[in-house]
């Protein structure tokens, strides 16, 4: 229980959540279960097929929120996740690796499909309506914001980090941006062994 709270505090710090929301989540008066991360969603994958939270159950999951206009954090994280899947070998098929777009206006399923063609084909790309993305981002405690560019168009600020779940959908940790490109292999192996 205490460990779960600290894990949550760690995630709050990592994800840059506001102090108040974290304080409330980690408050000892409330059981940690009320401060769950994740929740029901219905999105579409890069093949245009419906994809829900239920499709994640049964396998450990690594989920990352980003956008294809992203210059650095997103391609680097997708390249890292590609590396993790390769390092897992055949076990790579026993985990879900998911990229959720927080820029659904530009990231249609076909844009995602084209873009993800540069990475491991097992990575699921998800997008949806703005309302659907808003819901899933809130459930996963992901911050994002549209920022206009002076020359026209826009970029997105967003939480950079991979969130892990066990095969029953319980939050199982987070992996921050940057550092050893292989840093996700150990945690995923650990989740596979559970």
């Amino acid at each position, binding site marked *: 229980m205490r460990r779960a709270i600290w894990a949550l505090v760690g995630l709050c*710090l*990592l*994800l*840059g959540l506001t102090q108040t929301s974290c304080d409330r989540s980690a408050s000892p008066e409330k059981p940690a279960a009320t401060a769950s991360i994740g929740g029901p969603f219905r999105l579409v994958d890069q093949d245009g097929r419906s994809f829900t939270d239920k499709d994640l159950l049964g396998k450990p999951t690594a989920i990352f929120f980003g956008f*294809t*206009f*992203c*210059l*650095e*954090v997103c*391609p680097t994280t*997708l390249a890292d996740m590609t590396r993790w899947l390769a390092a897992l070998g055949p076990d790579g098929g026993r985990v879900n690796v998911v990229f959720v777009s927080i820029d659904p206006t*530009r990231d249609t399923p076909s*844009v995602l499909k*084209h*873009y*993800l*063609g*540069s*990475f491991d084909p097992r990575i699921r790309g998800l997008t949806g309506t703005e309302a659907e993305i808003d819901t899933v981002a809130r459930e996963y405690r992901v*911050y994002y914001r549209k*920022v206009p*560019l*002076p*020359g026209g*168009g826009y*970029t997105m*600020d*967003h*939480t*950079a*980090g991979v969130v892990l779940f066990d095969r029953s959908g319980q939050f199982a940790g987070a992996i*921050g*941006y*940057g*550092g*050893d*490109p292989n840093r996700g292999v150990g945690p995923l192996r650990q989740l596979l062994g559970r």
Partner: protein
Amino acid sequence: MRRTLLLALAGLLVAGTAMAHEYSVGSLKIGHPWSRPTPAGAVAGGGFLTITNTGKEPDRLLSGTTTAADRLEIHEMSVTDGIMRMRALPDGLAIAPGQTVKLAPGGYHIMLIGLKKPLAIGDRVPARLKFEKAGEVKVTFLVGNPPADGTGAGMEHH
């Protein structure tokens, strides 16, 4: 014949590695412009380089153009408290006398917006950079890995 071929191949190999290249304009020295390869369909690419002001007056990187993308902007990115932010620098980037400003992954960079095609290793991206005092200079961004001299360091870890 065989020797010529081997020499030609050796030349190609050398050209393929990220050799440092430099430009000068006014009292500015521009070191090794390079870009990362981009994923398929990527709309945005980055440009990295160093600018050293050897003069006595401050200068400023104001803007630029490239034929490889619709437009070129000067941006700064940061990851703070787990959140990635990117901001355009509409007033450009100041380079104080004696200072070297690094445009590298994880910080200041040139943003190529509206790429005509993805950047692939070995590509050469022509660009014109405009400085407030030194004027314009033509540079070529080599697409590949960060230079080995540490100017690609930034937040890179491999």
